[in-house]
């Protein structure tokens, strides 16, 4: 089994005059794992539902494996879908749930049985075939939902926030499980989530969406490190934003209060412009070792286990610094005067 390609061209969706998705263009290669990431109401689920055929686009074309399926009914597309609420059929056993799509396709009973057993092995629940959905935990139910979607050998797998209803620990487990199965079957997958960590961990590419618009499409590393818009920068990961004044755009010189800092990234604003300097919390250190040094005062220290999050008030704003936990780390306390520093290549300017 392997997936087909998926192409969306100029796809648009309106609900009673309100635009939910605007000019959505995307080409997904066979076997690729693409996430739609954004806050609720950004149009990611609507887009997924249009791909599934559960909503009809107001404009645009959707092609699955080269074939125009824009207005095909959901049961005429060869897709598998996993829902946030699992949506297992409560009246059927796990085996019957998994075999449902094959039964609808009138597949021979023995073949069906064989295929169901194969999938039960794939999701590592070989003994649960005769159980009913209510006898399984949430994580197990969602595995079954995944198997049910995969049973019909779909060209495309759609997952709509499949982990949102699960506990943190199960979520992590199932996340790697989904990725393992996706790689093993090499099936084209669209994954909808509002959880940036999930999207970063799973995806070959991420589509960040906001208010019905595509903000950025790229690989996780690129999205995180080179966010194209302010929205992407603030939605994906933690981000510091410090008001600065441009001194010399060509040399990357900026002023924070009375202190001068430098960035190696491009400044498009003219001299004297008031802009924002952006940097990730993990790029900031609590000493004067890096190129740009600021004086500040510790406001709060939050111990999160593997990292320690420290909030520092500096001239003109507040910065968050994430330090790795070490056994010998001397934790600062609120009220301490401190220096912070960050390299010039770690920060960039946004208007």
């Amino acid at each position, binding site marked *: 089994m392997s997936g087909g390609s998926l192409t969306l061209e100029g796809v648009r969706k309106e609900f009673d005059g309100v635009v939910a998705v605007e000019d959505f263009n995307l080409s997904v290669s066979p076997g690729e794992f693409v996430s739609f990431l954004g806050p609720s109401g950004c149009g990611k689920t609507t887009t997924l539902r249009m791909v599934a055929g*559960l909503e009809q686009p107001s404009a645009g074309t959707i092609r699955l494996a080269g074939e125009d399926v824009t207005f095909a009914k959901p049961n005429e*597309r060869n*897709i598998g879908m996993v829902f946030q*609420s699992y949506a297992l*059929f*409560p*009246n059927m056993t796990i085996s019957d749930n998994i075999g449902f799509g094959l039964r*609808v396709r009138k597949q021979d009973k023995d073949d069906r049985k064989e295929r169901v057993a194969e999938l039960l092995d794939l999701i590592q629940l070989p003994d649960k075939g005769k159980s009913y959905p209510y006898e399984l935990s949430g994580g197990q139910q969602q595995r079954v939902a995944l198997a*049910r979607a995969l049973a*019909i050998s779909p060209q495309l797998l759609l997952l709509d926030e499949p982990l949102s209803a699960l506990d943190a620990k199960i979520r992590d487990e199932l996340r790697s499980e989904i990725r393992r199965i996706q790689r093993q079957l090499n099936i084209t997958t669209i994954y909808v989530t509002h959880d940036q960590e999930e999207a970063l961990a799973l995806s070959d590419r991420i589509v960040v969406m906001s208010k019905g618009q595509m903000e950025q499409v790229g690989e996780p590393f690129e999205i995180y490190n080179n966010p194209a818009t302010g929205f992407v920068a603030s939605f994906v990961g933690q981000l510091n934003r410090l008001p600065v004044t441009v001194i010399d755009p060509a040399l990357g010189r900026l002023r924070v209060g009375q202190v001068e800092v430098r960035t190696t990234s491009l400044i498009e604003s003219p001299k004297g412009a008031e802009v924002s300097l952006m940097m990730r919390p993990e790029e900031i250190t609590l000493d004067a070792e890096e190129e740009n040094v600021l004086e500040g005062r510790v406001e709060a220290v939050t111990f999160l286990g593997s990292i320690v999050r420290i909030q520092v008030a500096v001239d003109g704003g507040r910065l968050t610094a994430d330090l790795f936990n070490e056994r010998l780390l001397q934790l600062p306390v609120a009220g301490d005067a401190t220096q912070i520093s960050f390299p010039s290549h770690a920060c960039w300017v946004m208007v």
Partner: protein
Amino acid sequence: MTILNAPTPSSLAPDEVIEAPVRRVHPLAWLILIGIGLYFFVPLILTFWWSLRAEKDVLGFEAYGRLFADANFWSSLAETVVDSIATIVLSLLIIVPTAFWVTLRLPKLRPAVEFVTLLPFVIPPVVLVLGILRLYARPPLLLTSTYGSSRLVLICIYAAISFPYMFRSVDTGLRAIDVRSLTEAAQTLGAGWATILGRVILPNIRVALLSGSLLTFAIVFGEYAIAVYMAQHTFGPFMANLTRSKVYEPAAMAIVAVAIVWVAMVMISYVTRPRDRR
């Protein structure tokens, strides 16, 4: 009036059944309970006692024997049973797809649909039947010219009267499951509407369907006013007739009717009881 107090289909998952804490019951509560018990059971018991007195100076089932020997009893019973089943089928055929579609696609219409299904409560049966006769007992819509066609009209009226019960039962059943997700899951797996309804939705609201059907059965079984106006020889009119000519048989027949409806009620509680698995 037991009908109105009948259990609604249980939407509780088994684990939601909460054990009632052991409590002392207020003496007044006992008093009320006993009062209501007397109110319900004294007439029943007296009717039963009366029905046993057909033979002089002996208590026995003579009246029942005579009743069961009457061919008209059996024909009216059979007719009523057939009418009830036809009503149930018609009511299900109208209400299930309507409730399903309202739940799935037109949730905004629910209050309107609910109101329409409640109309039989607002309109007294006599008004309903006179209105219907006014429309259908004369050209151009003459549908009551033969006994058989009147019977069809009667079944249609009964179906309308069953709507409040049927809609509520089915609606409760549909609300207890995630209709939209289940439908969409089945759709993406390749199922058409018939498969979705037949294999996914209906089996999961089985209890609600049974409960609605049994309530409808109970209503049709005891209906008198409309049947009389439609000149139908069903159970209600037969019993009323019997009262005019016989002494003990009507009491026996009342007991039989109550027994049949009670059996239906017990069946409702049986099929809707909380179980290990739903």
